[in-house]
């Protein structure tokens, strides 16, 4: 089914244990190794116009040139030119591009992790059509292999890979999940041998938004879908993806893939979690090494499909003047644009779009693991101001989103700024407004 | 094509005021045609200098290519004066005073009648009309010899 477990383990040591030269060598090796024709093309094409800066909210908020997206991969551009580009011998021979130094890489940790949400807005503004975000993702892989992933992300990824849980909890998630079912009076389908749909949850929901977990179970129940959680793969998130540990990302994804295959699922349902969608919908097959034997759907997509098929019936929800935050990984990078809007329309939501919405939406500020990096908080708050203002400017009383990381980031900002709004989960709104025409709910 | 005249050549005026396309010659200023207005104003300046400082000058008309029309306009503008001199020396030269006192229209032709030089001289009398010292001396000697021989 997959590569043997021992081959999957990457011998990555934390930063402090490695000599600087070793670190640089590791980073460069990984980056250069990973550069294929597409990335090489991206690195070749940049004309240094600086326009990508205007797409990035880190630059917009600070006007600090170092936050220019393409600048965030500068050392790797340098490495590519020296090591793998068609004229690499010239660059090397004449010393046209200096070797990247350990110090330089250290500085770039801040640029690649603390100040990049991997939101992909830069890839949409580039007049040449360079997918800058894709390069940043590759640069993160290299940083990880240099032992330069931020400690928070690194540790969570390591733990998740080992135990399936990014952080220890008083009670295992399995127990917590069942407790949520009891608390909200909804049956949690767990470890069924056979199911059409395999479910998982964001650990953010287990810890912070149990109502969202219950909502998922309730909606699935309403749809009478054959579905199950699997104890061995409950968590939707993938900290390997954030930390840039590609092998770890694969290991973590494999847990879900293996369990989905084990229960014969036709669909792997990604809950309200943006980066989990990217990791499972778009990247998992490549890491797995062959096409996945099931389809991957975000819960909003899944529900929109059910709505179209007439199986999901909704009441009109009174949410007042409402706006919607498009999670980057779902919309800009994932194409899940129509589904949430179809659901909102069916719910009769009075939707007032943000100034920048759909594919052009600004990130909540927490994406790319930034919300987990403690030292990045001041910068993150600064960047978020613009987003909060946009939400205020719609005049909406309520706002919805379909990613619990975004939700968590907004709630964190609410506490920090004393803001008066809190995002609601679209899934929960759906669960709360299931039509009882058939007597259920 | 048997005869030169059969070749249908037409010259289109590219420069305003230079050619048949501008029969009135209104656009006489600028371009390769030199421009009658420019010549007249320069003559005015040269005359002032002659009057105040006694300094003679000249304008070489061959260096200012003009169309027949422009030439006629210039002639018309200057008018005719009192003196019309014809000098026969290695061809014919005509020195005509113009209506503007001090401006002389000088035309030198060779023995074949080809124009060799054409100037507008600004002076009291064109130096060309005067005789050289050595010529006068030679003439004096010749007359003296004749008088002696005759007596």
């Amino acid at each position, binding site marked *: 089914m997959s590569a043997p477990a021992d081959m999957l383990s990457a011998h990555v040591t934390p930063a402090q244990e490695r000599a600087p030269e070793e670190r640089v060598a590791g980073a460069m090796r990984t980056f250069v190794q990973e550069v*294929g024709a597409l990335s*090489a093309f991206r690195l070749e094409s940049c004309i240094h*116009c600086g326009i990508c800066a*205007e797409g990035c909210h880190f630059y917009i908020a600070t006007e600090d040139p170092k936050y220019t997206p393409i600048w965030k991969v500068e050392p790797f551009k340098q490495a590519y030119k020296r090591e793998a580009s068609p004229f690499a011998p010239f660059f090397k021979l004449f010393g046209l591009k200096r070797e990247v130094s350990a110090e330089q890489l250290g500085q770039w940790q801040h640029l690649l992790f603390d100040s990049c949400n991997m939101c992909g807005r830069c890839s949409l503004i580039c*007049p040449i059509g360079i997918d800058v975000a894709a390069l940043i993702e590759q640069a993160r892989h290299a940083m990880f292999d240099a032992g330069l992933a931020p400690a928070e992300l690194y540790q969570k990824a390591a733990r998740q890979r080992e135990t399936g849980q990014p952080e220890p909890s008083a009670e295992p998630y399995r127990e917590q999940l069942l407790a949520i079912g009891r608390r909200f009076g909804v049956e949690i389908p767990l470890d069924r041998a056979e199911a059409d749909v395999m479910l998982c949850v964001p650990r953010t929901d287990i810890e912070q938004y149990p109502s969202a977990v219950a909502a998922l179970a309730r909606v699935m129940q309403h749809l009478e879908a054959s579905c199950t959680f699997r104890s061995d793969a409950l968590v939707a998130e993938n900290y390997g993806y954030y930390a840039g540990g590609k092998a770890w990302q694969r290991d973590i994804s494999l847990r879900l893939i293996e369990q989905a295959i084990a229960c014969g699922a036709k669909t792997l349902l990604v809950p309200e979690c943006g980066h989990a969608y990217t990791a499972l919908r778009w990247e998992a*097959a490549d890491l797995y090494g062959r096409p996945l034997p099931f389809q991957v759907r975000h819960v909003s997509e899944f529900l929109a499909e059910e709505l179209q098929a007439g199986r999901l019936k909704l009441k009109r929800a009174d949410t007042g003047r409402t706006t919607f935050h498009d999670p980057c990984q779902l919309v800009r990078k994932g194409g899940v644009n129509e589904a949430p809007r179809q659901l909102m329309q069916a719910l009769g939501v009075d939707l007032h779009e943000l100034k920048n919405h759909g*594919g052009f939406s600004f990130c909540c500020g927490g994406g790319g693991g930034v919300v987990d990096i403690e030292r990045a908080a001041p910068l993150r708050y600064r960047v978020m101001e613009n987003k909060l203002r946009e939400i205020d400017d719609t005049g909406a009383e309520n706002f919805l989103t379909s990613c619990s990381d975004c939700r968590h980031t907004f709630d964190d900002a609410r506490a920090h700024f004393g803001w008066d709004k809190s995002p609601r989960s679209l899934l929960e709104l759906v669960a709360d407004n299931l039509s009882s025409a058939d007597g259920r709910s | 094509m048997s005869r030169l005249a059969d070749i249908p050549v037409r010259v289109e005026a590219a420069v305003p005021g230079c050619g048949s396309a501008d029969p009135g010659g209104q656009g006489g200023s600028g371009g390769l045609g030199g421009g009658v207005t420019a010549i007249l104003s320069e003559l005015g300046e040269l005359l002032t200098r002659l009057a105040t400082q006694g300094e003679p000058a000249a304008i070489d008309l061959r260096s200012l290519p003009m169309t027949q029309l422009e030439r006629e306009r210039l002639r018309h503008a200057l008018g005719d004066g009192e003196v019309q001199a014809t000098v026969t020396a290695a061809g014919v030269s005509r020195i005509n005073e113009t209506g503007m006192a001090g401006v002389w229209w000088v035309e030198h032709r060779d023995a074949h009648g080809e124009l060799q030089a054409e100037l507008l001289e600004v002076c009291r009398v064109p130096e060309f009309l005067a005789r050289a010292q050595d010529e006068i001396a030679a003439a004096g000697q010749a007359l003296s010899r004749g008088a002696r021989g005759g007596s």
Partner: protein
Amino acid sequence: MDLLGFARGPALKVAIAVFCLGVVWRIVGFALLRIRRDLSAPRRALLKTLGAGAWTVGTRSWPHPEFIGRTGAGEALGYSYHLGLFAVVLLFTPHILFLRSLFGVSWPGLPSSLITIIAVLTLTLFLAVLFRRITNPVMRMLSNFDDYFSWFINALVLVTGLAATAHVGGPYERLLALHILSVDALLVWFPFSKLMHAFYIFPSRAINGALLARRGAVS
């Protein structure tokens, strides 16, 4: 052989050879790096994806309305000097004759005086672009030797071309020779520089557009 003969004879040959060699070398050199098949299930059918890629080539020529406020002026400046360059390079009669002698095809040109005006405007825009590169903190930080030298060599071609048309700064044939030599230098520099974006820009947009369309995202 005089300088002009050298410029448009052997030097031009060498320049064209280096240009072709370098361009193909560079493109083949990275295009033949491995390309992994994307194993994820596409959201859109292949044909739609490719269509969206082609469409992006056009749409990415101008910023999306969401971006115009921040990038419109910069992009307009960039495009306008490119247009000026194209007009001067492709519509000036002596250039058309030059290209005709090389490729055997020709097309009508614009009046030389109009081209001169365009060239002067383009040069002005060139200076504006350089000024922007130096004063804009982002561009200044990103810029390297390539950016400045590519600017310089293009400006040199413009200036020598203008000097040759205006007969300023020496005898015409020397100015013309310098102009052609600067073009030779440009051709030699081209494959090793950012000027390669002339070849990259459209495929790059198409690929980005297609990859985004494959996921059903806006491009």
